[in-house]
């Protein structure tokens, strides 16, 4: 067949895609339910999100809520820790608990036929966890060992030191979710029990159910199992103070490291800011994709790294912009130079081609963000956590398309501040100091973590 291979094939007409929509209702105990019916496979995915993340950790007790999340499924109802785990396994249900800065999430994925039995187990964990002292002590020893282990992990060290320095100790978001070693040692069973009583409550949580189950059937199972979950929470987040950005380089020494982990960034406006979509498109060009400027420069042009990029990072009550990469240690100075070059360049704006590319990529990718049960559930979860409008996903493509070149270029000027970047380098101190002889990217300071 003769044809010209130089001609890029054009797409056939676009297929129709409708955003899966959730139905919402409230149980009598105050728990809000979001239900998305999806029936291609006999699967149900359930996620309970509880407003009880590590940002609520008391001062000097950093690590409390993560420990609660580790203890809460160590026995519940009539089952002890091992029996409870066995029950889930026998159903073939995967169950996990995860704590982050904002909340604790309990997730289960089950075959339809085992939905009600799995939900019964989940409800026992929410309503009747044992939180026994011996289980608590074991989990505490486990997390202390884990923290010791993480001292070897350059990526973890870079992320944790960067947030600690950037956000500052007056703001509870600056502490690692897993907690602080010397604090954890001081946490007692009583505090875990109190945190459970004050936080793990229906009006402080919501539940997303995605899968092959009817609304009526779902309501019946939920009423049967969750009616006993009662109580109200009145928790206020301690005041979060914002630290001023400091233009400095902090070196966290990791002797014998063959690479440098680089993080650099500054505070930014939150998830609900008006220019969110402009920032999203801006970052897509700067560092949000493989073909973004930062990765093409550091990886494809210079070969400094296996990968590099940038993000606007959003927590519920905190946000920052950052660039991340890891490079061969001898390339650290050159990599920093290229990162700052890209940051300064983006202030001059992006091109129409770049904007069109970013739009096209985001708009056309949209349906694939709803491919799996997990995708759908986490989209809904994000929408609720950040108080986004009900029709957020329905309006999404329209919102992206409405952004002009001016909007993006304004977003660059208003959201990227190269001379305010706080930089953290994790690597071999001596080799790094040799390369950083001037204050080109900020004054250099050696960082001693606690």
């Amino acid at each position, binding site marked *: 067949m003769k044809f010209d291979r130089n001609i890029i094939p054009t797409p056939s007409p676009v297929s129709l895609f409708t955003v899966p929509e959730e139905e919402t209702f409230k149980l009598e105990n105050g728990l809000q339910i979001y239900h998305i019916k999806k029936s291609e496979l006999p699967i149900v995915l359930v996620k309970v999100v509880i407003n009880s993340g590590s940002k609520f950790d008391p001062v000097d007790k950093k690590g409390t809520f993560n420990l609660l999340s580790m203890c809460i499924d160590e026995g519940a109802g009539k089952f002890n820790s091992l029996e409870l785990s*066995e029950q889930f396994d026998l159903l073939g249900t995967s169950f996990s608990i995860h704590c982050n800065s904002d909340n604790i999430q309990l997730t289960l994925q089950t075959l339809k036929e085992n939905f009600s039995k799995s939900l019964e187990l989940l409800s026992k964990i929410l309503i009747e966890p044992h939180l026994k002292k011996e289980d608590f002590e074991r989990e505490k020893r486990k997390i202390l060992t884990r923290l010791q282990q993480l001292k070897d992990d350059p990526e973890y060290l870079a992320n944790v030191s960067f947030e600690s320095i950037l956000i500052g100790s007056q703001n509870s978001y600056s502490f690692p979710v897993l907690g602080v070693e010397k604090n954890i040692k001081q946490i007692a069973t009583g505090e875990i029990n109190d945190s459970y009583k004050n936080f793990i409550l229906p009006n402080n949580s919501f539940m997303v159910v995605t899968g092959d189950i009817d609304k009526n059937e779902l309501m019946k199972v939920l009423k049967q199992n969750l009616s006993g979950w009662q109580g109200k929470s009145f928790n206020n987040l301690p005041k979060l103070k914002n630290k001023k950005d400091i233009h400095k380089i902090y070196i966290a020494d990791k002797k014998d490291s063959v690479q440098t982990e680089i993080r650099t960034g500054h505070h930014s406006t939150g998830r609900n800011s008006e220019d969110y979509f402009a920032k999203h498109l801006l970052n897509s060009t700067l560092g949000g994709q493989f073909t973004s400027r930062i990765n093409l420069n550091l990886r494809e042009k210079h070969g400094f790294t296996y990968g590099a990029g940038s993000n606007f990072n959003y927590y519920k009550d905190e946000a920052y912009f950052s660039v991340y990469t890891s490079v061969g240690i001898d390339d650290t100075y050159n990599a920093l130079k290229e990162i700052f070059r890209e940051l300064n360049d983006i202030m001059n704006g992006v091109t129409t081609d770049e904007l069109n590319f970013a739009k096209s990529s985001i708009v056309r990718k949209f349906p694939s963000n709803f491919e799996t049960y997990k995708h759908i559930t986490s989209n809904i979860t994000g929408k609720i956590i950040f108080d986004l409008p009900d029709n957020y996903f329905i309006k999404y493509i329209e919102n992206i398309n409405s952004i002009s070149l001016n909007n993006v270029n304004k977003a660059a000027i208003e959201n990227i501040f190269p001379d305010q970047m706080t930089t953290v380098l994790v690597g071999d101190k001596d080799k790094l100091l040799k390369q950083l002889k001037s204050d080109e990217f900020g004054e250099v300071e050696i960082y001693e973590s606690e």
Partner: protein
Amino acid sequence: MELLNLKYEKYKLDNGLEVILHQNKNIPLTAVNLWYKVGSAQEKKGKTGIAHLFEHMMFQGSEHVAKEMHFRLIQEAGGSLNGSTSFDRTNYFEKVPSNFLELALWLEADRMGFLLPALDQEKLDNQKKVVYNERLERYDNQPYGLAWELLITNLYNKSHPYSWSTIGFAEDIKSYTLEDVSGFFKKFYSPDNASLVVAGTFDIDKTKSLVEKYFGDIKSGNGVNHLDLTDIKLNETKTIVHKDNVQLERIYLSWLTQKAFDKDDAVLDILSDLLAGSKNARLYKSLVFEKEIAQDVSAFQFSGKYGGHFTIVATAKPEKSLDEIKSEIFKEIEGIKTNGIKPSELKRSKNGIKSSFVFALQNLDTIADHLNLYNFYLNEPSSFAFDLNRYESVGKEEIINVISNYLINPFVELRIIPKNKIS
């Protein structure tokens, strides 16, 4: 389970390219997944890692596609893409909105048929640096990151192609020349050494003619000789101690076992789950939960076309000894061999595996890759139900048999211990 009987159509182009089509119209997406039957096992000594480096070069443009355009065009279409290299094969995959299927086929065909005219020294030098950094990031600078390499280099004898890792040795990565790369392409990257899966939403007839249009006139290769290996054996137990930037000591015990889909392969998978796959698994319960001598424990059966091994890994709690952990591990294995396992233990594993087969059907990339995987190892793309049945038919006697057949043999013991501890 009817759900696992995936319908497909398989045929061959004149040039030898195998094509497998599977429709699944749940969402307007189409996955394109291409397996080349070449992995690090086909590499020569001194040039290890070239199959993986080559995977990188496949993204550097071809005669009709400029550097970076492969990424750019797929991303502009809203698709996702990647590739990966293992001992046995290299795969390349795109998932695109269905109306961009032709774009993905055009791109894959161009690098299958027309890669060499676009290859140059500058691209090679750049990707050698990227891959070298990948090695640093994912292996050398990772705690315990060299364990896999240390295990396989000691477990398989020097002439066995699984005795080096797919990333390759650092000095080898630096040594590749343009001749190495183009020689590798000519030998292995031809339609008769590949299979193409299209899965998702698409029109069958139209897709067949597009596949013919883009791939039909790419020339066949000269045929690839498959490796002829005699049975492998480890004659005596080896102990290796390696110092690394770690805080906690870790022990690895590894035995040579069976190839992928061989008689005992699935039994060994279940054994790994019985030992370490859950809180109630024998080793987890004993080492981590009750005695608290280990922080974590895991077990897995790795199997490929030319061999396999079964590995148990445990990290010691601070101040706890690897000797104690090791003796507990052998005690638990001996316990199963002597007293067998309870029906509930087997049920636990099997139910988890059954669910995971259903959960895996959510993702089009996973489905497409599995059609290729089953086609490669079993010559039957829709082997999901067959595969699940391998697990469901395992009985307790077979568990005891695999312990007697493999886990009493000589093994490799690797200990990774702290270079310097941080207080």
